[in-house]
């Protein structure tokens, strides 16, 4: 009986210590994990794949390359009604890395007078061979998978065809995204 009483007293003494120990150990582990994440610094490096201006830039359309070449804005491209206008080399995707890079150019979104126009985007290598599928603007998921060799440029070609009834006031805006794999 006495032994049992002593044991229960001891248990009562150890229990708060055990609870405190759990709190201290758990909270210390949380702080340590935070410090571990901070020790893993996230650095910056130059973009390995970036956009450069194509030969059509400045004459047939305006191409503005963004900071670090990670985005490009193309403006003043036009098309005729009921005829396909081809911009062969608006911009190019350059692989500045020392090894091949795989990338995917995908249709993201568009807006404006979209029912009156058909736009296709194609990517060609320096030998003039089309790379990946044709991107049909307006079709979700339409993309071109590319493997760009080191130091090579892949030119991006735009084909624009307005419907016969399209007015000169009509316009559309298109956004494509380029995903470069590590």
């Amino acid at each position, binding site marked *: 009986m006495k032994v049992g009483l002593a044991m229960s007293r*001891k248990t009562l*003494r*150890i229990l*708060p*210590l*055990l*609870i*405190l*120990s*759990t*709190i*201290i*150990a*758990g*909270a*210390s*582990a*949380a*702080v*340590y*994990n*935070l*410090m*571990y*994440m*901070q*020790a*893993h610094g996230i650095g910056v490096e130059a973009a390995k794949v970036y956009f450069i201006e194509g030969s059509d830039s400045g004459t047939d359309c305006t191409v503005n390359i963004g900071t670090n070449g990670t985005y490009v804005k193309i403006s003043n491209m036009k098309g005729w009604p009921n005829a396909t206008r081809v911009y062969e080399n608006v911009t190019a995707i350059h692989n500045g890395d020392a090894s091949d890079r795989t990338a995917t150019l995908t249709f993201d979104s568009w807006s404006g007078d979209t029912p009156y126009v058909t736009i296709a985007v194609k990517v060609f290598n320096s030998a003039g061979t089309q790379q990946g599928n044709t991107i049909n603007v307006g079709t979700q998921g339409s993309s071109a998978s590319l493997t760009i060799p080191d130091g090579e440029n892949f030119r991006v070609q735009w084909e624009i065809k307005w419907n016969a009834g399209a007015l000169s006031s009509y316009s559309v805006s298109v956004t494509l995204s380029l995903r470069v794999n*590590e």
Partner: protein
Amino acid sequence: MDLGDLTMISSLELPEVYGLIGTFLFVFLSLYTAIFDRYHHKGFPYLYQAAAVAGFGQLIYSSICGQIHVRLLSNLFYVVFSLTNVIGLFVRMLYRRPELSNVLKCAYLFLIVLPSNLTVASLYFGYLQPGPLPLSLFPLEASPLLLVVSAIGVLAGVLATNKPEPLRAVANVTSVKIKLDNKTGKR
């Protein structure tokens, strides 16, 4: 995951690993001396618990203070202090407690003293790298609150062990008050 992503971190870049080991050692010593209280002073568990709370506080300070040399020095000092206590308790068991069984002494030596010292030495000399813990029980936002709760808990434990009279008096006053309330309620 790509193997190239597994960047190794040295313990000198993350000195909090020493603080964490020191805290865990003090927590262990506290529980150990509480379980084997026949052979140790009654105040030891609370003393070690207080040291563990201090280690936790130091970890919080490290997360706020960004100076690496301050973090390194404080954490190294803390882990050396905790290892000294681990060894000190073993020496005390050897010379001051001869009645303690050899099995217990050997178990303490081979399960606590040697592994803890070897782990810290391996971390320091680069044979081991710190890694993330698989889980952390508490949200970070609660850390300061938990620090205060822990400190109050240790203080209450110390009071309950060494100066139980004030706590008993408080308990008696409360029980008398409850009895009086009951009596008044009956009337």
